């Protein structure tokens, strides 16, 4: 195969890749959902009184921070069926997306734990105190005063974590998930490796635009939600 660079091929590949974005989105959405739940549990453990729970949460976060996504992905991919085997279950045939979602939920949970914890801690204790002092119950104080403020603080970090998830998620192709990266590699293989550069550039353009869009969305959202902070910004 003669190798040459053909810019028009980039546009062509973008249209071939775009339909597979929905696999990427699906996997990311589930990971965000489960990861956020894990993050809440870990953050509660870290902020709580139990020393054991705190140590477990800290250990979990350290371990996940030190594990490359691809290593975690393969540990899950090979490890879960192996564990299932020990209990007499055959887990080799479950959808590959499941392994991807498990991996990135675990990872996103560790990220979210820190996001949630730091947002919670950024809210002055006095906010809670004044809420209960005017007669709100503890639950009401959290729901109406602490949570809305913590959410705004957490938003930029949540956005960054989401971008990180999206990009680490690009590795899902390594276990054979056909998302946009998987599809890109399939196209290249079927082309006998011709035009690989164009397809990879197409891939990077899709990711780049997506990231910018997400970034802008979170900036806008932050601006809308940060009521009560307007004058801080103009100051």
């Amino acid at each position, binding site marked *: 195969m003669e*190798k040459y*660079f053909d810019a028009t091929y980039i546009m062509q590949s973008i249209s071939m890749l775009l339909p597979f974005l929905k696999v990427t989105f699906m996997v990311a959405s589930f990971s965000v959902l489960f990861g956020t739940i894990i993050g809440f549990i870990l953050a509660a453990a870290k902020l709580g009184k139990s020393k054991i729970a705190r140590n477990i949460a800290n250990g979990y976060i*350290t*371990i996940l*921070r*030190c*594990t*490359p*996504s*691809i*290593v*975690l992905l*393969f*540990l899950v991919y*090979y*490890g879960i069926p*192996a564990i299932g*085997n*020990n209990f007499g279950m055959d887990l080799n045939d479950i959808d590959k997306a499941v392994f991807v979602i498990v991996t990135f939920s675990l990872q996103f949970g560790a990220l979210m734990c820190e996001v949630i914890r730091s947002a919670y801690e950024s809210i002055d204790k006095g906010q809670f105190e004044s809420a209960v002092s005017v007669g709100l119950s503890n639950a009401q104080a959290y729901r109406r005063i602490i949570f809305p403020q913590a959410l705004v603080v957490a938003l930029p970090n949540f956005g960054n974590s989401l*971008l990180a998830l*999206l*990009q*680490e*998620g*690009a*590795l899902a192709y390594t276990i054979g998930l056909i998302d946009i*990266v998987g599809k890109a590699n399939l196209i290249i293989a079927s082309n006998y490796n011709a035009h*690989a*550069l164009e397809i*990879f*550039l197409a*891939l*990077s353009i899709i*990711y*780049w*635009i*997506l*990231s*910018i869009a997400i*970034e802008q969305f979170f900036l806008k959202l932050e601006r809308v939600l940060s009521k009560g902070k307007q004058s801080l910004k103009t100051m």
Partner: protein
Amino acid sequence: MSEGLDYKFLVDTFFVALSGVPIALAITIVALLVALPFGFILALTRINRIPVLHQFAQIYVSFVRGTPIIVQIFIVYSSIPLLLDSIFTKYNLEMNVYDVNPIWYAFIVFSFNTTAILIEVFRSAISTVSKGQLEAAQSVGLTNVQAFRRIIIPQTLVVALPNICTATVNLIKATSLGYALSLQEITLRAKVAANVGYNYVEAYIDIFLVYLILCSLVEYAFKRYEKRLIKYKAVNA
């Protein structure tokens, strides 16, 4: 496959994985050596809004942060050989692109990536060091260069250190993608060892342990260093 872990393989392969550490570290160190000065300088162009360079740095950072590192690797790995090939043929050099050691590609990709990350790290760190510091340095007769070297940079480093630590750990982890460059680093070595007997679970446990140890050590070293810097700061305060 159901008879549990192969412990002998587990132990043997641990050392196979460990033997990939020097390559991972070499890439990390080269990338940091390139990224630290370039990141700092480009951060300054961002802060001082130097025309052209400032916009360039902005787009560069946006691209690196907006695209997966594996895609960056793919692009470098598929574009540079094309480039080299055309150069070699043009000047009739008797060289084969496929003889180039893949570690060079790794140096390029990871330096390229880490520089962008450090631009952002330094940008936010420099902006926390107040303008008054520079003005005070100038007021006692330091030149701009002296003020930066003696006043601004030391303070910036202290502020930036935790983020540099994170970037370093992420960099070490990212070297696991060296497989895409056929680089004989930690992950690929252990994986190849596993191919023989399908001992993938064991291999990945080994790889996992090696990264865990490596990254924990790096984090620990940074924490120690940070403590020393902060102590120094407190004594001075």
